[in-house]
């Protein structure tokens, strides 16, 4: 996982929701919503982190499994909103 953006988001998720877990197990395709890691509260925390960190804003309908179910999808959405995000 060389992408810096992905790494930052991964770090946030590891620190906030998965303390003590092995970071190697969280890959770009690990299911986060369907895997029970991101529930509604965790999803909101993540969204607010990204909004603050990258100056983007999310719409409620974007907060779903299609956009946030794994790191790759999250990064894709973030890049679409802010191409310069890193």
């Amino acid at each position, binding site marked *: 996982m060389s992408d810096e953006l992905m790494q930052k988001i991964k770090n946030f998720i590891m620190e*906030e929701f998965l303390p003590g877990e092995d970071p190697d197990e969280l890959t770009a395709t*690990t299911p986060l919503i369907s895997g029970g890691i991101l529930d509604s509260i965790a999803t909101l925390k993540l969204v607010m982190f990204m909004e603050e960190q990258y100056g983007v804003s999310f719409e409620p309908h974007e907060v779903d499994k299609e956009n946030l179910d794994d790191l790759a999808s999250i990064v894709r959405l973030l890049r679409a909103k802010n191409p310069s995000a890193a």
Partner: protein
Amino acid sequence: MDSTLTAAQAAARATVADEPRGRIRLRDFAAIALQLGLVLLLLRQFQIESPAFRLLAMLAFAGFAVHAFLPLPARLPFFSALSLISIPLTLGLVNGVWLIGIGLVLIAACHLPYSFRVRGAILLGLGALLIGQRASLLPTPWSEAIWPILGAMFMFRLIAYFYDLRHDKAPVTLAQSTSYFFMLPNACFPLLPVIDFKTYRRSHYSTDAHRTYQKGVDWIVRGIVHLLLYRYIYYYGTLAPSEVTGPAEFLQYVVSNFLLYLRVSGLFHLVVGMVHLFGFDLPETHKRYLLAASFTDFWRRINIYWKDFMQKIFYFPAVFALKRLGTNKAIIIATLYVFLLTWLLHSYQWFWLRGSWLLAWHDMLFWAVLGLLVVANSLYEIKHGRNRSLGKAKKTWQSTALTIAKTYATFWFICILWSFWTSESITDWLALWPALKGPYTSEALFFPLLSLLVIVLGTVDLPGIGAVTAPANGLRPWLRDRAITVAWALGLVLISIEGVHTSVSAEFATLMHSMRSAHLSRLDNAKLERGYYEGLLSVDRFNSQLWEVYSKKPANWLDVENAGIRRFTGGFGQTDLIPSFVSTTKYGTVTINRWGMRDQDYPQERPAETLRAAVLGPSTVMGWGVGDGMTFEALLEERLNREPVSKAFKHVELLNFGVPGYQPPTQLVSLDKALDFQPNAIIFVATGREIRRSASYLAEVVHKSLPIPYPELAAIVKQSGAVAGMDETEALKLLLPYGPEILRKVYGRVANTSAQRGIRAILLFLPQVREGSWQEETPETLRIASEVGLEVINLADVYAGHDVDTLRLAEWDDHPNELGHRLVADALYRRLQADPAILFGRAAGGAGN
């Protein structure tokens, strides 16, 4: 087994889908088809749900066999066509066409070439029109039968659909829309999970076809297991509030009430499992909700589709709108808003299914309490976090023990809260609690220990049926999961075979015999017999089998009740028939004479040489659902005059004093009235469960503080400790032990009053049209009648050899129809022919002499 995808399983996903999208190997197809054959056997053996559902299951399984081999682009249109066919197949051609027509109008309105707001306004207008029609404020050219299904298809899915039309830019095809709304097997279920449209579309062959189909089979089997567990609890576990007399019964009451929810989880698994057979890899609807370890966990595990629907449509938009207030405040307000809406939408759902609005305090309180608990739990999780794991959570004995303790506490708290929600009123629920002061016997440990055992076994994570896990560790786990599904199905089929279950033991055979048939429980039967379900406000009623029977009943059923055939008197009898009332029903004219009898006109003074018998009883005597002249009393009177059985009298008059809703004690009011008409005979009609009904009626009288004009009954009430104004359930608990004595006093008064006036007094026992638990009290009833000196005519076998459906008015109305009344009249005539003295006295002589 938990179906949550672990990281390892997800990684394995890619390796599994080695078949092209939507393709299945012939060998795998054969395995699925064999399992579906087994499922069909199971559905048949255990009569799972309605015949209509079993028909649709056959349609779906046959459709699957064709669908699986169609070219991929043709599959969704095929599923859509199959779904559309299922509607007229279930509801009939006319109703089916109406339902599809209304549905297509609603779908078309979503796609009109106007702005989102205009389309929204049009949809609201259409909704208002339908609401007016559902509430019977506007006329409808279609049958009422379509409302629950139309409601189930559109009341929530239309919201999800319209929301996605606005936000999801992917074009929608006609097949997607029609299959989404008219989805097989919705046509026979008024209760369906709220499937999200976006998820529905995206999940179509989103993963390996074989795995999707197999997951469908697993969930269907899991659903059947849930439904059988539900059936056991429904038949043998549920108690009436008045039966809760000690701690053991209290615990049984609260646990059984909660576990009745298994019906919903079973049906949802069945429905979603079936949809998987057409390539939709939908998420789980429920996730081991009995093992929730907190209130938020419970909300996330039970009815997941509902939680997701509320989250998407209301929760996230609310949080985003409020986030300037800060995360915590936004979450608190949005969560409470979601629970407020859940309550309102529950009432909205009730409206579409029943045609009236549900406004019950305990319903509001339940959602308020659950909402507050979830908010508190959410705040705790925000502050302290919650355990999450990327793989299998590492468990220590301390963490396992803590999870078990939390789960156990959550389970019991939810059971108590659920009992509150499903009670008919707050006072009913409060009346349960004094039972905890009763004796703590070893029986009181049964449910606490059983629930602990289930939670311990669930927490240590034994393999279960159903979850399709990717073969992350090779083929073995996959085969093991399949073997579990097949073993469950085969095992259930095996024990359903008569030769097998009778060879185990007589008790087991009786249990299996009962489990194999879908029928109403003894409690629901009692409610149906009393017509009691009309006023019920149990908020989970539309999950119940009783509600399903009731929901088929047209709102204007027989019309007479609404037209005001009865009036309130304010006395012990509460109501009587309105004199000189006439109404036309679909079963004929109902005429009440000037004296308030459903009969022809008679002078008050008995004519000379006339045998006059007053027939006292409830609605069966009054002739609910048959036209004038077709009641057994009128038929018998006509025949006794046409073909006399006695020469003692020139004429016979049978006066019908039947009043709908009358119970044995209220028939004393009819007796008082009948004496003014100088009868030579009294025929007191008993229709089953006389003892309990007598006690129940006195409990109602006590609750309503009505006067009791019969000193012997008032004395029993006093002796029982029941006092005026007391809660009805509490009063019933006190009066039930006196049930036989109450009946003895009622029958005794009939016998004594008659004897004092030289009137012959007869107890005529008329059975219900169908067999059931109403028969339990019959021997004691007849014994009491004989002991107090009533002549007994027992027509217990009058309907023997006839199919119940040919005898009753309708599935929701067990009153005898014309054939039923004719059978009673004929049987009674034969009985009087054989022994005329019973009615005509010793000087009766023989017929035609």
